[in-house]
């Protein structure tokens, strides 16, 4: 059976159709959130975009571009302040190279909070109506696998994915699961399977469905209801769940909206 997804032209095919309201700086996160709530789009709070220096300037800018480029993202509305290090218009020009369905707004040029909010709603709706989603066959599902320490359950899933011809990417280098999620986002995975660290709660990435699998830790036992799959799930059960999520089933973290987007940084702010 051919699986259907959302056609993103050169960016591939997505399994979700999210509009991203992307704040280019911490100062515009609140307005971005208000716009996103109003039009039913995705956004995230962050503390970057200004007062950054050295490799962080290009690093954060590239990270934002990668978010906008992800195939689960349809159209993008960038909301900037105006005087920040990462300028909204320049970020928009850079994002448009990979995602042409991008527009931008600047608070300092839009009459303030109310003006930007109103303009933002209009712009977000216009993007949605101008670029409605088109379905396309999803020829290759890419699964991200995140864990801190390998075990037989993980090895068994990887063998199952290989046997099923499903492409996968592994992130296991970061102690922080949020950074693992960000790394997998950059590799373009459609969904993430998280073998959640025993001392971490189930979590997610706002643009990528995340399947949390419990360990046998006390924390995970206490939060059993918040995991998609219990400790000791068989690889075939996980694979079936992956395919259901690829077909539209919402994960627990999608429903609870748990999880923030964590951007990698290398230098302190100035």
């Amino acid at each position: 059976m051919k699986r259907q997804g959302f056609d993103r032209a050169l960016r591939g095919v997505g399994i979700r159709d999210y509009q991203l309201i992307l704040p280019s700086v911490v100062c515009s996160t609140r307005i971005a959130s208000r716009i996103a709530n109003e039009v039913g789009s995705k956004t995230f709070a962050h503390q970057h975009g200004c007062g950054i220096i050295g490799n962080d300037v290009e690093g954060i800018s590239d990270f934002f571009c990668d978010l906008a480029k992800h195939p689960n993202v349809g159209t993008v509305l960038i909301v900037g302040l105006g005087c920040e290090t990462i300028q909204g218009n320049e970020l928009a020009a850079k994002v448009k190279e990979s995602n042409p369905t991008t527009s931008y707004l600047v608070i300092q040029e839009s009459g303030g909070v109310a003006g930007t909010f109103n303009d933002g709603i209009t712009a977000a709706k216009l993007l949605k109506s101008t670029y409605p989603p088109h379905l396309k066959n999803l020829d290759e599902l890419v699964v991200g696998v995140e864990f801190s320490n390998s075990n037989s359950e993980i090895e068994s899933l990887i063998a199952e994915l290989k046997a099923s011809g499903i492409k996968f990417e592994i992130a296991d280098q970061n102690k922080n699961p949020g950074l693992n999620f960000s790394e997998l986002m950059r590799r373009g995975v459609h969904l993430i399977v998280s073998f959640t660290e025993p001392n971490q709660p189930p979590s997610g990435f706002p643009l990528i469905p995340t399947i949390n699998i419990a360990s046998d830790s006390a924390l995970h036992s206490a939060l059993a209801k918040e995991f998609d799959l219990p400790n000791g799930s068989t690889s075939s059960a996980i694979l079936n769940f992956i395919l259901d999520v690829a077909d539209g089933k919402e994960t627990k973290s999608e429903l609870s909206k748990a999880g923030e987007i964590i951007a990698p940084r290398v230098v302190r702010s100035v």
Partner: protein
Amino acid sequence: MSKSLTGYPRADGRVGFRNQVLVMPLHSALCATARRISEESAAVAITHDWSGEIDADFARIFKVMTGFAANPNIFATIFLTLGTPGELEIIDKSKSIGLSNSTIVNVSEIGSMELLYEIALKEAISYLALADQVARVSVPWSSLHLGLECGGSDALSGITANPALGVASDMLVELGAVSVLGETTEILGAEHLLAARALDPNVGKQIIETVARYERSINYEGIDMRGAQPSRGNIEGGLTTLEEKSLGAAKKAGSAPFTGVLEYADPAPKPGLYFMDTPGHDIEQLTGFAAAGINIVVFTSGRGTPTGSAVVPTIKVSTNTQMALSIPDLIDLNAGTIADGTQTLREVGELIFNEIVDVANGKLTAAELGRHQEFSLSRMYGTQIN
């Protein structure tokens, strides 16, 4: 100066000018729940990206989280927690700083994110009702801890809003309040002028050393700070050099002598004017101020910014009339009238003083009306201090 202050005295002797109910998630995975509660009630909330890492940045994060949760403008803090030892330590420390009303909602004990939301929302509504019943009382000037901030500066910052804020700061210091200048990177080039105003020669040396230490930490990375300061927004606003920006930024501190130097997020021990080592990053500075127990901030801007704090009223002062008129819902007061020639520096300084007192007494700022509750955890990200 016939004005007087009213506020909410706390058990530890500090005073709040707001009676906020704060929902404080102690793990990034709980932030969405905190935001949801603040959207459904008058409680305030923060969002952050800390997931319990105990690394080189933990001491800095611990100080900010604990100080912030115990800011005197808070009536009660509701902690959302997984119940890990690190999180429980944050709660205990917040209480020892002076937080008197708090509730711990432990998701590990409840077992469900939805129940976490429902229980914490109910707690918030109940605290909000109690907070509403508390009456303001007359409080001394020493209870006012003012934070001085500027962001999105332009060519007029150093001749209108910043020196006018300096007039207001001097008036408050004279009355016995605390006033704190931050933004280490934005006094670079002007530090010798501030050091010369130190009450004690050691304080002067500390000001010089604090700036040098910051610059060394950036140079260590092989980066010239002058590549980011003045920022592109500053240059578009007419500023030419870091020194010009610094000379203007330093004017926020008026002409009072410096009583001491504070590390990031440390509280002032007694009345007077202080310098705190903070980044110029607006929200890292604002968060550090709040964690230090500062209860009012004045934020001057040439380009305009909507940002505010969940727990500290943040008064925006425009440096120029054009911006104040073009984005009015971001700005509380216009100091551009000094450049227009319609008001004197002294007159605008007194207006800022009056606005500080009015806001302390309950007048809501533009940022509060817009429910701006930005928050940042200031991290070193491996940057070495030597």
